[in-house]
Structures are given as C-alpha cells and as structure tokens.
C-alpha cells in the first residue's frame, strides 16, 4: 500500500526523495520504495524519517 502521508509530509517541507534519503542515511531508492509501499522499513528507519520530517510515527506510518 502506498504511503501517501510520507510523500505529502516530505513535499510539505519541499524536500526531494534524495534530500530525505541524505538526511536519514539511506539511498533514494529506499525512500522511493517506502513511499510506493514496496518496502517495509524497520522501526529504526521509521523513527529516523519521523525525526527528519518532524512528524510522529502515528502520523506517518499508522494505518487507520
């Protein structure tokens, strides 16, 4: 399932996938795979992404 909330949060901060990838220490393709729902990140990476985007885990990764 696509993670549109992550994409929206990133776009809101005017960050490209590469910018976010550099900030959390992963490849651009990994961020792309998370947004497309092709890859389930570990909790460690989820936390790093949340910190980079100033969001909580619930806001980015919790499914209603």
């Amino acid at each position, binding site marked *: 399932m696509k993670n549109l909330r992550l994409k929206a949060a990133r776009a809101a901060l005017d960050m*490209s*996938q590469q910018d976010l990838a550099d900030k959390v*220490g*992963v*490849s*651009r*393709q*990994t961020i*792309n795979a998370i947004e497309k729902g092709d890859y389930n990140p570990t909790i460690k*990476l989820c936390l790093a992404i949340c910190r980079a985007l100033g969001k909580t885990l619930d806001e980015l990764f919790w499914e209603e």
Partner: protein
Amino acid sequence: MKKKTLASTVLSIIIVTVVILAAGIRCALRPESKDFIQFSSTVTVTDTGIEHELEPIHFEPIGKKVTFDVEIDGPDGIDTEVIIHVGSPDSASIVKEKITGTGDGSAKIHVTDAEGKDLYMQFIPENSGSLAPSSYSLQFKLKGTSDELKFHSGPMMIAALLLVFGIYVIVTTNRSESKYDERQLAARGKAAMNALIIVMMCCFTYGCLSMSVENFPISMYEVGIGSVIVGSTAFAIMCDVNDAFFGLSERRAKFIALSWVMGILALFGAGMTFLGLGRFNEITGTGLVVGICFLLLAIELTVKSSIEKKEATDEES
C-alpha cells in the same frame, strides 16, 4: 567491533587459514621424483637374434615403493623385456615386463619393497620376427618416482603470502562501516544466496557431465573460474536490479565504464597469446566467459542507469 561481527571475522579467518594451509601443505609435500634419464642405443638384428650393448642401469631408491615409467621408441618389430634385479645385475629378477611393438611402447613398473636396496634395470630387445637383418636405433626414456614425500618450500611461501592477504581483506572488510542501507543489505543477502546456488549448480552440472562423458573437454580450472565469474555476475545483476549494488556514496558511471572496458578487453584478450598479439586464433573458455559476463553486467548497469535517471527526474518534476 560488535561481538557478532568479531565472531564472524574470527570464523572467516579460521576457515581461510585452514583451507590455504591445507592446500599449501598438500602442494609442498610431493613425491620425490628423479630426473628423466634419456638415452639411445643401436641394436643389430641378425639371422640368429639381436645383438645389443645395453648395460643395466643402477638405481638407489629413496622411498619404499618406486614406480618406473619406461618409454621406448623404435621399430615396431622389436619387443623389449624390462627386467629388474635387486643387489646385482646377476641376481634373480624381481620384476619382468614386456613392452611389445616398441614403435611407441611404454610401461609402468612398480617395485614395492625397494627401500635401501640397489636396483638394476636391464633391457633385453627381441626380434618379433618381422624385421630384416640390419641396425636399428632405440630411444629410451625413464622416470623413477618414489612414494617418499619431500617438502618443497615454494608452495608454502605462496600459501603464506595468500594467507596474509586473505586475513587482511577479511579484517578490513569486517571493520569498515557498512555503506549500504537496511533495504540494500537485505537485497544483497538474497542475491548472495541465489549466486551461491548458481555456483553450486555449475559445479554440480560439471560433476555429473564429467562423470558421464569420457574425455570431458572442459577442465576443472575452467569450471572453477567460470563458476565464480558467473556467480559474481549474477550477484551483481540481481543486486543492481534491486538498487542494492552501489552503496550510498559510490559512483555508478565509473563502474559502468570499467565494466565495458573489462568485457571488451577480456573478449579480445581471450584470443590472443602473449607472443601472438593481434592474432585472434585461440579463444580460451575462461576468457570468453569473463568477457560475456562483464558485457552482460555492463549492459544491465547502463540500462538500469538510464531508468534510474528517468525515475529521479520524474520524482523531481
């Protein structure tokens, strides 16, 4: 260094040490082989038999078991009896072997209890009936090999150097920080497992075919190198398809250029001998495999690179 990393480093070092030392010792301890003895003699065929001046050859073997490889080249009509005496040329023979049709005759003669004894090898040529009276030349080649192993330091020196290099590579590889993220590491693990299966299948196929086909045309060396090259290429391609071949700070363009150059050079180099540069006369199997694998990798990397560029552009726009 974490405990698990340290444990895998130590385990790798132990395995590499055992494998390299075992191979080195196996190569260093070889049977002592005497130099070739090569001589020729003229025999004269008469109406009553053969006249010759072949003297017994004296041997002092080192080990307990000795194998003599005897080759005799001469006219087809001469059979030669090879007799081995112990102690003196006049004593009773312990081994007798007849080499018939001397044209291109050879024999392996085994002496099982030779330690500390003087051996005398006597050659007695006989006319099998088809030769006209005349003089004929016989060429003899002898090689004696004993079962006693002698230590050769050369292979052990090479093994020691390889061991130092292997340990250095293991330690530096395990000590450095990973340049791949978690998704890439998982993809590389799967690719490594698949590549290992490919290598095993190559070796297994070779084993089955070489057992069922007599004089199998591919050597063990070619299969070993070929399997590793095919496995490595499969690993690289599988990793790159999953965006896990290049680390976080690696340059793709440099590697693509290198793969093209390596592939083209290997294909051309496969057909050239060191002295016969420019002549595409002999394509070696290993060179061909290396060339094809590098070219496949270069093509895949180039295609993937253009897809990657397009994706990055689409994402930005």
